[in-house]
């Protein structure tokens, strides 16, 4: 647990967290290791955990019938994988595949949601960190949809 607390404290995502909040989050965390090609989760599965990448690279992809999977984003060291754990019905809307050997910290969603309900200061700290990520990804998605490199 102390190791995980230490590891989490070094991640930019948790910068500024109090020791108490770090301890609470670490209580919901565990280490994961994924080989290249292994999936962190698949579309439709229960979003009962989200991930902070320590090393490696993860592709977010969607599958259309009869087509090879379409990768719409890749995430690397220090980045968060997954926001579906925040909103009901807590189901993944895409696949997450390790592109290389990837080490990540998984944070149990039900555990953390419970702690955020019990301690709204913790919940607010989490929201302050998640909201900018969601906004950045929304902006990036808009830019992708605009297809700015295509012919006008």
């Amino acid at each position: 647990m102390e190791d995980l607390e230490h590891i989490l404290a070094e991640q930019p995502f948790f910068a500024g967290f109090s020791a108490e909040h770090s301890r609470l989050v670490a209580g919901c965390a565990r280490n994961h290791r994924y080989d290249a090609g292994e999936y962190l989760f698949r579309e439709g599965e229960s979003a009962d955990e989200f991930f902070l990448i320590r090393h490696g690279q993860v592709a977010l992809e969607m599958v259309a019938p009869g087509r090879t999977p379409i990768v719409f984003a890749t995430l690397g060291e220090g980045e968060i994988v997954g926001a579906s754990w925040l909103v009901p019905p807590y189901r993944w809307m895409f696949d997450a595949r390790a592109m290389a050997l990837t080490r990540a910290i998984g944070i149990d969603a039900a555990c953390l949601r419970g702690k955020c309900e019990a301690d709204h200061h913790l919940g607010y700290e989490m929201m302050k960190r998640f909201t900018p990520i969601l906004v950045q990804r929304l902006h990036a998605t808009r830019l992708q949809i605009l297809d700015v490199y295509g012919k006008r």
Partner: protein
Amino acid sequence: MAAAPQPDPFVPQLYRVTRARRELADTATLQLVPLAGPRPHFEPGQFNMLYAFGVGEAAISISGAADAMSFLHTVRDVGAVSGAIAKLKTGATVGLRGPFGTGWPVAAAQGADIVFVAGGLGLAPLRPAIRQVLADRRRYGRVVILFGSRNPKDMLYRRELEQWRQRLDVDIEVTVDHADADWHGSVGVVPALIRRATFDPRDTIGLTCGPEVMMRFTVSALLEAGIAADRIYLSMERNMKCAIGLCGHCQFGPAFVCRDGPVMRFDRIAEFFAVREI
């Protein structure tokens, strides 16, 4: 002794296409050599007006020089004139006026970190600046090249990007907007790479070129990273006709892009940058 008369800026000089290289399905790079006299000096970032006889004239950025005698122009077929130019074969003749406009602050950036952010065909006007910096690498701090493309298939100058990536003294990241699972690189928009790049924002010059929407997001990300507005440069694109600031077609606020640009310092155009009417 009287100075040699300057050529009339409205009269095209004749150039021969000595090499035409297909880059992408709709994009070609032409090597142009003057039929008479030396090739004029150019600064990275400047443009020439290329004239396809019987079709018309278009402003095309200089994308490099194969040697002291030639210009390189990478042209994408997006209309009648650019299409005619992009389809020119080796041996063809083209009219050329220029070079015109402002260049990238390559010399002024010496001693500082330098971040290039290019999107799509925007790599073409930045390429001569990148080549110049890499040729004089010891004069610069950290050199970061960030490039975004539509997909892996439409990646401009792929071979040269791979050569740059092999260098140990350059940080280069390439991303694409969309890919299938065969692509092992980054997927996402190029401004997002800025957050992951390493440079000293207090002593960094940021240069960006690409579609204007992409540059808006890029400038925002560079500012967010801590680079001051007066250290960010972008290459603007407007409808250039005369190329010498007379006709007004490329007016951008109080400036003319052909004369005061295309490379412009962001703090000087910030108030006009988001005004959609200009």
